[in-house]
Protein backbone atom coordinates (compact mmCIF):
# COMPACT_ATOMS: atom_id res chain seq x y z
CA UNK A 1 0.00 0.00 0.00
CA UNK A 2 1.29 3.44 -0.86
CA UNK A 3 0.91 6.85 0.66
CA UNK A 4 -2.23 7.40 -1.42
CA UNK A 5 -4.03 4.62 0.44
CA UNK A 6 -3.31 5.84 3.95
CA UNK A 7 -4.00 9.55 3.50
CA UNK A 8 -7.83 9.14 3.23
CA UNK A 9 -7.72 6.77 6.22
CA UNK A 10 -5.99 9.43 8.32
CA UNK A 11 -8.26 12.27 7.20
CA UNK A 12 -11.29 10.04 7.72
CA UNK A 13 -10.11 9.27 11.25
CA UNK A 14 -9.67 12.95 12.08
CA UNK A 15 -13.13 13.87 10.74
CA UNK A 16 -14.72 10.95 12.64
CA UNK A 17 -12.98 12.08 15.82
CA UNK A 18 -14.48 15.53 15.25
CA UNK A 19 -17.96 13.98 14.89
CA UNK A 20 -17.47 12.00 18.12
CA UNK A 21 -16.35 15.16 19.94
CA UNK A 22 -19.36 17.14 18.69
CA UNK A 23 -21.65 14.29 19.79
CA UNK A 24 -20.08 14.42 23.29
CA UNK A 25 -20.76 18.18 23.35
CA UNK A 26 -24.40 17.60 22.39
CA UNK A 27 -24.77 14.75 24.89
CA UNK A 28 -23.52 17.10 27.60
CA UNK A 29 -26.31 19.58 26.79
CA UNK A 30 -29.06 16.96 26.50
CA UNK A 31 -31.26 16.96 29.59
CA UNK A 32 -34.50 15.34 30.72
CA UNK A 33 -36.67 17.41 28.39
CA UNK A 34 -35.04 16.19 25.18
CA UNK A 35 -37.01 13.71 23.10
CA UNK A 36 -35.95 10.06 22.93
CA UNK A 37 -35.57 10.07 19.17
CA UNK A 38 -33.05 12.91 19.38
CA UNK A 39 -31.01 11.02 22.00
CA UNK A 40 -31.06 7.78 20.00
CA UNK A 41 -30.01 9.71 16.90
CA UNK A 42 -26.97 11.19 18.60
CA UNK A 43 -25.94 7.85 20.16
CA UNK A 44 -26.23 6.22 16.72
CA UNK A 45 -24.22 9.01 15.14
CA UNK A 46 -21.54 8.68 17.83
CA UNK A 47 -21.18 4.92 17.40
CA UNK A 48 -21.32 5.15 13.60
CA UNK A 49 -18.65 7.83 13.54
CA UNK A 50 -16.46 5.71 15.83
CA UNK A 51 -16.87 2.71 13.53
CA UNK A 52 -16.10 4.89 10.51
CA UNK A 53 -12.95 6.22 12.13
CA UNK A 54 -11.77 2.77 13.21
CA UNK A 55 -12.45 1.25 9.79
CA UNK A 56 -8.75 0.49 8.96
CA UNK A 57 -8.80 -1.95 11.90
CA UNK A 58 -12.06 -3.47 10.70
CA UNK A 59 -10.35 -4.72 7.50
CA UNK A 60 -11.62 -1.89 5.30
CA UNK A 61 -9.38 1.00 4.33
CA UNK A 62 -11.60 4.02 3.68
CA UNK A 63 -11.30 5.98 0.45
CA UNK A 64 -12.10 9.55 -0.54
CA UNK A 65 -15.92 9.12 -0.77
CA UNK A 66 -15.93 8.17 2.94
CA UNK A 67 -13.95 11.32 3.66
CA UNK A 68 -16.47 13.39 1.68
CA UNK A 69 -19.38 11.96 3.63
CA UNK A 70 -17.64 12.42 7.00
CA UNK A 71 -16.90 16.03 6.05
CA UNK A 72 -20.56 16.56 5.12
CA UNK A 73 -21.67 15.27 8.52
CA UNK A 74 -19.17 17.53 10.31
CA UNK A 75 -20.43 20.47 8.25
CA UNK A 76 -24.06 19.76 9.15
CA UNK A 77 -23.24 19.42 12.85
CA UNK A 78 -21.20 22.64 12.75
CA UNK A 79 -24.06 24.52 11.11
CA UNK A 80 -26.48 23.20 13.74
CA UNK A 81 -24.20 24.31 16.57
CA UNK A 82 -25.86 27.76 16.67
CA UNK A 83 -29.13 26.09 17.68
CA UNK A 84 -27.46 24.22 20.54
CA UNK A 85 -25.46 27.12 21.94
CA UNK A 86 -27.96 27.89 24.71
CA UNK A 87 -29.04 24.33 25.48
CA UNK A 88 -31.27 22.01 23.47
CA UNK A 89 -33.34 23.76 20.74
CA UNK A 90 -37.13 23.71 21.11
CA UNK A 91 -37.43 21.37 18.12
CA UNK A 92 -35.60 18.65 20.06
CA UNK A 93 -37.71 18.96 23.20
CA UNK A 94 -41.26 17.87 23.82
CA UNK A 95 -44.23 20.25 23.89
CA UNK A 96 -44.20 22.56 26.88
CA UNK A 97 -46.83 21.96 29.57
CA UNK A 98 -49.74 24.35 29.16
CA UNK A 99 -49.17 25.69 32.65
CA UNK A 100 -45.88 27.20 31.52
CA UNK A 101 -47.67 29.78 29.39
CA UNK A 102 -48.31 33.01 31.30
CA UNK A 103 -51.71 33.48 29.65
CA UNK A 104 -53.08 30.36 31.31
CA UNK A 105 -53.61 30.77 35.01
CA UNK A 106 -53.01 27.76 37.19
Amino acid sequence: MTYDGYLPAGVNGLLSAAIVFICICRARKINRTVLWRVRVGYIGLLMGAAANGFSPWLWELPSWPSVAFAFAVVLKLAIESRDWRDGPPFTSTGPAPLGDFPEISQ
Partner: protein
Amino acid sequence: MQSPDLTPVHLVTIIAGIVFGPSVAMVVGPYVVIAICSMGGAGVMIMQREGDSLIRACVYFGAAVIFALFGTVPLSIGVASLWGPLQENWLYGPFAAGLAFSADKWTTLILPWAAKKLNKFVDILIAARGKQ
Protein backbone atom coordinates in the same frame (compact mmCIF):
# COMPACT_ATOMS: atom_id res chain seq x y z
CA MET B 1 25.10 2.24 -2.12
CA GLN B 2 21.63 3.68 -2.41
CA SER B 3 20.75 6.15 0.35
CA PRO B 4 17.51 5.42 2.23
CA ASP B 5 14.45 7.55 1.60
CA LEU B 6 14.45 10.03 4.48
CA THR B 7 11.49 12.18 3.52
CA PRO B 8 8.80 12.62 6.20
CA VAL B 9 6.14 11.32 3.80
CA HIS B 10 7.99 8.00 3.49
CA LEU B 11 8.35 7.78 7.28
CA VAL B 12 4.63 8.47 7.80
CA THR B 13 3.76 5.88 5.15
CA ILE B 14 5.85 3.20 6.89
CA ILE B 15 4.33 4.03 10.30
CA ALA B 16 0.82 4.00 8.81
CA GLY B 17 1.56 0.66 7.15
CA ILE B 18 2.41 -0.81 10.55
CA VAL B 19 -0.44 0.86 12.47
CA PHE B 20 -3.16 0.14 9.88
CA GLY B 21 -1.70 -3.23 8.85
CA PRO B 22 -3.53 -6.57 9.04
CA SER B 23 -1.29 -7.94 11.81
CA VAL B 24 -2.34 -5.12 14.12
CA ALA B 25 -5.96 -5.46 12.99
CA MET B 26 -5.98 -9.13 14.03
CA VAL B 27 -5.20 -8.14 17.63
CA VAL B 28 -7.01 -4.80 17.76
CA GLY B 29 -10.20 -5.92 15.96
CA PRO B 30 -12.18 -7.16 19.00
CA TYR B 31 -11.05 -4.15 20.99
CA VAL B 32 -12.38 -1.86 18.24
CA VAL B 33 -15.80 -3.48 18.64
CA ILE B 34 -15.53 -3.01 22.41
CA ALA B 35 -14.52 0.64 21.93
CA ILE B 36 -17.46 1.37 19.60
CA CYS B 37 -20.03 -0.20 21.94
CA SER B 38 -18.50 1.42 25.02
CA MET B 39 -18.71 4.82 23.33
CA GLY B 40 -22.45 4.26 22.94
CA GLY B 41 -22.80 3.42 26.64
CA ALA B 42 -20.61 6.35 27.67
CA GLY B 43 -22.71 8.69 25.52
CA VAL B 44 -25.86 7.61 27.35
CA MET B 45 -24.03 8.16 30.65
CA ILE B 46 -23.07 11.72 29.61
CA MET B 47 -26.67 12.40 28.55
CA GLN B 48 -27.92 11.38 32.02
CA ARG B 49 -25.41 13.58 33.83
CA GLU B 50 -26.41 17.21 34.11
CA GLY B 51 -24.42 20.35 34.80
CA ASP B 52 -21.02 19.07 33.67
CA SER B 53 -18.51 21.37 32.05
CA LEU B 54 -17.17 20.31 28.66
CA ILE B 55 -13.78 19.23 30.02
CA ARG B 56 -15.43 17.24 32.80
CA ALA B 57 -17.76 15.55 30.30
CA CYS B 58 -14.82 14.60 28.06
CA VAL B 59 -12.84 13.24 31.03
CA TYR B 60 -15.82 11.17 32.16
CA PHE B 61 -16.34 9.92 28.60
CA GLY B 62 -12.70 8.90 28.18
CA ALA B 63 -12.55 7.30 31.62
CA ALA B 64 -15.70 5.28 30.91
CA VAL B 65 -14.32 4.03 27.59
CA ILE B 66 -10.97 3.06 29.18
CA PHE B 67 -12.81 1.35 32.05
CA ALA B 68 -14.83 -0.67 29.53
CA LEU B 69 -11.75 -1.48 27.43
CA PHE B 70 -9.97 -3.01 30.42
CA GLY B 71 -12.99 -4.61 32.10
CA THR B 72 -14.97 -6.14 29.26
CA VAL B 73 -12.72 -9.04 28.24
CA PRO B 74 -12.15 -10.48 31.76
CA LEU B 75 -15.83 -10.07 32.61
CA SER B 76 -16.92 -11.72 29.35
CA ILE B 77 -14.54 -14.66 29.83
CA GLY B 78 -15.78 -15.07 33.39
CA VAL B 79 -19.46 -15.02 32.47
CA ALA B 80 -18.98 -17.22 29.39
CA SER B 81 -17.30 -19.89 31.50
CA LEU B 82 -20.48 -20.22 33.56
CA TRP B 83 -22.54 -21.65 30.70
CA GLY B 84 -21.07 -23.84 27.96
CA PRO B 85 -22.88 -22.75 24.77
CA LEU B 86 -22.24 -19.10 25.51
CA GLN B 87 -19.28 -17.69 23.58
CA GLU B 88 -17.39 -14.75 25.02
CA ASN B 89 -17.31 -12.97 21.63
CA TRP B 90 -21.07 -12.45 21.81
CA LEU B 91 -20.81 -10.71 25.17
CA TYR B 92 -18.20 -8.10 24.22
CA GLY B 93 -20.69 -5.58 22.79
CA PRO B 94 -23.38 -5.64 25.49
CA PHE B 95 -20.89 -5.82 28.36
CA ALA B 96 -18.80 -2.96 26.95
CA ALA B 97 -21.90 -0.75 26.67
CA GLY B 98 -23.08 -1.74 30.15
CA LEU B 99 -19.71 -1.17 31.81
CA ALA B 100 -19.28 2.24 30.17
CA PHE B 101 -22.84 3.22 31.10
CA SER B 102 -22.30 2.22 34.74
CA ALA B 103 -18.82 3.76 34.98
CA ASP B 104 -19.84 6.83 37.04
CA LYS B 105 -22.30 4.90 39.21
CA TRP B 106 -19.86 2.54 40.97
CA THR B 107 -18.86 4.89 43.78
CA THR B 108 -22.33 6.32 44.41
CA LEU B 109 -24.73 3.43 43.75
CA ILE B 110 -23.27 0.01 43.02
CA LEU B 111 -20.49 -0.37 45.62
CA PRO B 112 -22.59 1.02 48.53
CA TRP B 113 -25.39 -1.37 47.54
CA ALA B 114 -22.95 -4.28 47.47
CA ALA B 115 -21.47 -3.20 50.81
CA LYS B 116 -24.95 -3.07 52.34
CA LYS B 117 -25.70 -6.58 51.11
CA LEU B 118 -22.33 -7.84 52.41
CA ASN B 119 -23.03 -6.20 55.76
CA LYS B 120 -26.38 -7.95 55.99
CA PHE B 121 -24.78 -11.28 55.06
CA VAL B 122 -22.13 -10.87 57.77
CA ASP B 123 -24.87 -10.02 60.29
CA ILE B 124 -26.68 -13.23 59.36
CA LEU B 125 -23.44 -15.19 59.78
CA ILE B 126 -22.87 -13.64 63.23
CA ALA B 127 -26.45 -14.37 64.25
CA ALA B 128 -26.12 -17.98 63.08
CA ARG B 129 -22.88 -18.34 64.98
CA GLY B 130 -24.44 -16.99 68.15
CA LYS B 131 -27.20 -19.61 68.13
CA GLN B 132 -24.81 -22.56 68.39
